[in-house]
């Protein structure tokens, strides 16, 4: 089968725009040789641009003619390439996700991009650019169906259960999502940039200004508010009309206003679940759920951000949905011992002292004076911060799950099924050894650990860490034993 014919004009436009810069440079250079005659120059420029576009068009037509894909009995075959040919046969078994994405223009044309993701390597295995929207849906459907047939002992499940909508975002939830996902991580960067370039920029607009104590904070606060609103709006656009459906052995999601994404999460490849709630969401009683699958987190295509299976919902509902995926019991988190809290207090105290010393050191410079002692206001925050950090940490080891909790600003609860454990390690830094503390890391094949989001039972008692490490490893063996007796 071939790509959609409409993909030709779209790809021509897309790739001409991509190499537009080169075309313009070549055109300008060419028209430069016209000896100052404007009409002649413009003609040469247009001519070169037309040749450029024509080359792209020729290429794209050839690409379309030479691109074929086919669904065979047990592989997805793709033949592609204009000059160097590439034939691929991807076994259905290996295909983990079939993602569909559409931006606004593509939606108007009724075409969509299909991505086949396989385990291993964060890379997309194959892309179909672009097929008909219905065809994309059919491919997603067919791959899922054939994958099931392909699996041993699955023939009896032909009659698949009807798709069931597990979650659809409501306008209210979308609004709350916009509020809680206001991202302030860029603020320090922006403030530094403002303090360097801001004064010059402001004087260039308003040269007569001298009220810096008013203008400075005003611009700073304005920028922060602007950033917060912008990041909120971006996530609202991303998760607009979000839907999660269970579909046989898969979960399917769809989302996005400007760019529409659709992807699938294979149930049997689920590695870990993460429930995230930042301060604001916690206060409002909301949370989000993300699912990590092996080697590839759904929707992680371009950005490094782990994206949610449920962007936002009331906490109870998130927990309920998480349990429908991995039926973990009620959890009682065990907090680290209180000496861990002392450790955080000491750590923050040192940071505060460095800041205060730095502020004082600045006032020693000539021409600088100021109330450096105001930075001592950091000191009363130290115990509070240490307590909050300590309070939000915890771990729980159940029969079939290891669950950890970390983070105050953005609290993350990670649910690791025993069966998914890859390695377990306990580590103790010098400072942890002084206080008889240790951290246990439960490693899985979920890709979020690439970003340091492992399940960590941090700063627990050293003795207990030893036992936890061994217990998690033992639970893995038990879980595997159980799976075998079930087979």
């Amino acid at each position, binding site marked *: 089968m071939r790509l959609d014919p409409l993909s030709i004009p779209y790809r021509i436009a897309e790739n001409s725009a991509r190499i537009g810069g080169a075309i313009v440079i070549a055109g300008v250079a060419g028209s430069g040789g016209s000896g100052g005659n404007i009409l002649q120059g413009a003609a040469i420029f247009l001519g070169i641009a037309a040749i450029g576009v024509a080359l792209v068009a020729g290429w794209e037509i050839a690409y379309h003619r030479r691109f074929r894909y086919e669904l065979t009995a047990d592989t997805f075959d793709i033949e592609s390439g204009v000059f160097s040919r590439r034939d691929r046969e991807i076994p259905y078994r290996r295909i983990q996700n079939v993602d569909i994405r559409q931006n606004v223009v593509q939606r108007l044309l009724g075409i969509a991009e299909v991505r086949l993701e396989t385990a291993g390597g964060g890379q997309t295995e194959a892309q179909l650019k672009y097929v008909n929207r219905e065809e994309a849906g059919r491919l997603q459907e067919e791959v899922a169906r054939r994958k099931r047939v392909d699996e041993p002992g699955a023939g009896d499940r032909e009659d698949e259960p009807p798709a069931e909508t597990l979650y659809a975002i409501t306008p209210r939830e979308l609004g709350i999502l916009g509020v809680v996902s206001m991202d302030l991580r860029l603020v320090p960067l922006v403030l530094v940039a403002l303090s360097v370039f801001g004064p010059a920029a402001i004087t260039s607009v308003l040269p007569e200004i001298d009220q810096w104590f008013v203008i400075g904070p005003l611009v700073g606060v304005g920028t922060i508010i602007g950033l917060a609103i912008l990041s909120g709006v971006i996530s609202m656009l991303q998760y607009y009309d979000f839907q999660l459906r269970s579909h046989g052995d898969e979960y399917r999601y769809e989302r996005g206003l400007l760019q529409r994404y659709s992807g699938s999460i294979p149930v049997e*490849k689920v*590695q870990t679940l993460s429930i995230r709630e930042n301060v604001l969401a916690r206060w409002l009683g909301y949370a989000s759920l993300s699912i990590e699958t*092996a*080697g590839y987190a759904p929707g992680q295509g371009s950005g490094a951000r782990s994206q949610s299976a449920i962007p936002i919902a009331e*906490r*109870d509902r998130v*927990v309920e949905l*998480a*349990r429908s995926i991995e039926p*973990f019991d*009620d*959890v*009682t*988190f*065990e*907090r680290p*011992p209180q000496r861990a809290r002392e450790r955080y207090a000491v750590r923050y105290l040192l940071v505060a002292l460095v800041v205060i010393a730095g502020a004082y050191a600045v006032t020693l410079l000539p021409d600088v004076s100021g109330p450096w002692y105001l930075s001592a206001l950091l000191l009363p925050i130290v115990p509070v911060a240490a307590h909050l950090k300590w309070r939000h940490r915890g*771990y*729980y*080891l*159940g*029969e079939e799950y290891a669950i950890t909790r970390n983070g105050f600003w953005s609290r993350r*609860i990670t649910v690791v099924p025993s069966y*998914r*454990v*890859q*390695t*377990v*390690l*306990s*580590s*103790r*830094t*010098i400072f942890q*050894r002084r206080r*008889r503390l240790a951290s246990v*890391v439960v*490693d*899985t*094949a*979920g890709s979020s*650990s*690439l970003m340091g989001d*492992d399940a960590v039972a941090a700063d627990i008692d*050293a*003795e*207990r860490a*030893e*036992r*936890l*490490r*061994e*217990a*998690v*490893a*033992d639970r*893995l*063996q038990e879980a*595997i034993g159980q799976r075998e007796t079930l*087979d």
Partner: protein
Amino acid sequence: MTTDGDRQNAGSDPDSMDSETRPDGAERHPGTEDDPAVSGPEEGDGKSLTEARTPDGRVRWKWGLRVAIVAAVLGVITGAISVFGLEWGVLPGVGAFVLALVVGVVHALLLYRTWEYQVREDALYLERGVFTHVKTVVPFVRVQHIDTSRDPIDRLLGLSSLVVYTAGSRGADVTIPGLTPTDAEDLQDRLKMLAKESTGDDAV
């Protein structure tokens, strides 16, 4: 999930729930965990196939040589800056070399003292680290493949290393350094066999 209690000693203590399968947990006396030689699960839990082993002593030479190379590079750079840039003579370069060498060698010796590995019934167990002491359990079911590797210094000293790969993102490559080539191959074969025995249809 919704309860958020603060039970310090009950419920989720792994030992209390697991007391039948791991009776040794309670016998571990407190205060031993600062000494890597006595801590850890090897004390008579009957699960290990081998005693805890340490890498071959020659690995200290390997690490020492590596440190010497790094120190030499550092010394040459410092020396060059000091001679041509600051015109302070060669002494700072020599000083940097000696300092880096001493620190590195002490670190290598300490690291050797902490290194320990053990083949257990169902997992490979490793311990190492000077500043951060890490103990890793790699279950055989999760082993994807096992390599032996020898770099030039290894060949010079007649050593070999074993690299164990899992699908996990953190412990993706666990290396046991300082094995003799025959030991490395024996261990590789043995781990391969154990990994094969402990089936698991999908390793992820």
